[in-house]
């Protein structure tokens, strides 16, 4: 345990030193406060918009940003140390591969978690102070938990990439493609399937397919709790599926555990 904490502590401090925590927190805070107060500017009014609209817009922006940030933060975790020679050195220490992996995960995951909590928590707190409605805390609570899980999921995916890549630049390229696939291509493909399939895709089949993308699970968690009147498109169909928010969060958690387990297996078989 001491080993894991030592590695986690180092990674967390790296995140502080590189201003990662500060930048991510700021991005999230500006995004959420901005959307909360000026989300309705397009319709001609300035002021607090409805909670559903706020969460819906926040979710659709966060679903692009969070995976990108997590991948950027972690893609070079292993391949970077491998290029520098410190990975080999660390493995000659009384430190198992899993301890190193989990240490890094806790450290960098800590950065993501704290940034999400502080950044989005800020606007939740502002809203709560103004309205004093506990629904705000509950809705934002789900949002923050799911955003954290989404971030952790892509941190674990970044580790898989980092452990498989032989060079830092290749890892960066693969990370970008991965982001592009989960954030954009997957939904476009789903939409094409929905429109193109002759027999028509059943609602449950569509929802099941969406479970294959952590970004979509994240969207579902947050939209499932809202009035569907604020949500359009393919998602609206899926929202009516009978999965509860807790079930969706569990699936998102699986999207954290599975890539981490795969990363562990890759690391175990990695040649040094």
């Amino acid at each position, binding site marked *: 345990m*001491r*080993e894991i904490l*030592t*590695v986690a502590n*180092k990674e967390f401090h*790296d995140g502080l*030193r*590189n201003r990662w925590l500060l930048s991510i927190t700021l991005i999230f805070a500006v995004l959420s406060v901005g959307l909360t107060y000026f989300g309705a500017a397009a319709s001609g009014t300035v002021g607090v918009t409805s909670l559903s609209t706020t969460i819906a817009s926040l979710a659709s922006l966060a679903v692009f940003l969070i995976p990108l940030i997590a991948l950027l933060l972690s893609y070079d975790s292993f391949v970077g140390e491998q*290029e*520098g*020679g*410190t990975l*080999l*050195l*660390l*493995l*000659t*220490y*009384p*430190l*198992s591969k899993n301890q190193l992996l989990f240490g890094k995960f806790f450290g960098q995951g800590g950065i993501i978690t704290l940034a999400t909590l502080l950044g989005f928590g800020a606007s939740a707190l502002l809203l709560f102070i103004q309205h004093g409605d506990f629904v705000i805390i509950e809705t934002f609570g789900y949002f923050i938990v799911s955003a954290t899980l989404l971030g952790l999921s892509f941190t674990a995916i970044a580790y898989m990439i980092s452990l498989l890549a032989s060079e830092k630049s290749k890892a960066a390229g693969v990370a970008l493609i991965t982001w592009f696939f989960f954030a954009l291509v997957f939904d476009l493909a789903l939409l094409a399937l929905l429109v193109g399939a002759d027999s028509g895709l059943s609602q449950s089949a569509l929802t099941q397919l969406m479970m294959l993308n952590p970004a979509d699970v994240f969207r579902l968690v947050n939209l499932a709790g809202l009035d569907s009147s604020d949500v359009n498109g393919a998602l609206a169909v899926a929202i009516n599926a009978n999965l509860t928010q807790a079930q969706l969060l569990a699936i998102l958690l699986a999207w954290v555990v599975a890539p981490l387990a795969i990363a562990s297996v890759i690391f175990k078989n990695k040649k*040094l």
Partner: protein
Amino acid sequence: MNTPLVSLENASKNYKALPALSSINLQLAQGEVLGLFGHNGAGKTTMMKLILGVISADAGNVTVMGMKPDDKSAWHMRAKMGYLPENVMFYEQLTGLEVLSYFARLKGQTKLHAKKLLEQVGIAHAMGRQVKTYSKGMRQRLGLAQAFIGEPKLLLLDEPTVGLDPNATAEFYNSVDQLKTQGTSVVLCSHVLPGVEQHIDRAMIISGGKTLALGTIAELRAAANLPTQIKPQGLNVELLEHPIVKAYVNSAGHLTVPEQDKLKVLRYLLADESLSDIAVESANLEQVYQYYLAQAEHMKTENTKAGA
């Protein structure tokens, strides 16, 4: 002292079809300093990785401190091993002290221990600076400090003196001598370097993953039967014409004498009053090393000829 600290028995390692090490036998006693010599790709680093337990042998046995180093149960003994890799870039954005504290903590040591080691290798003045501002020599010293963490019983050093100035090199060898008296075994991996001879107990020369020679430098020198250089000052014609000198002398007035004739020639030369000075140079490690490599090369061509 009875059981060797490190023992390799017929250890072999292949990377895909390429044999990196074949049938290596080595016993390293406690407090012994072994020089491991070979050119790039000879298998030095692979051998170190085997001893460190980072990779496992495909055949044969590797035992370190009575345990298999690649086994899970042997992890705690890794705190008693120090390793300096050939190429290592420490975390550039951290300070020297932060880097060393991190590694020290992983071995269960404190920040204070890290500070002491930085003082020992002579970069305590720069411990608050980021590693990216360090010179090559300072980085190498930081690497050495890292290998010295936790008073290791076994040190594996890959090219430890690269980038060190002559003073720092001397200091480094002093540290090695000191560790040796404390009972630490050291494997010094290097291209042949001047000055390494008096600090090692035995030398191992490897090439293409095979042991070419293993023994004390005196043994290797004797086995190689390399001639001694005798450089007298003030040779006169009378001396030069004498058959015992004439047989060995070259145009520069230096004599290249086989080991067994050395004393005979020396006695004769020293008996002559006209000599003002005389220098005797035994074959150095570099020549011994070249001899064994050339020998191996020769064998290889013989074999291919025989095969064809």
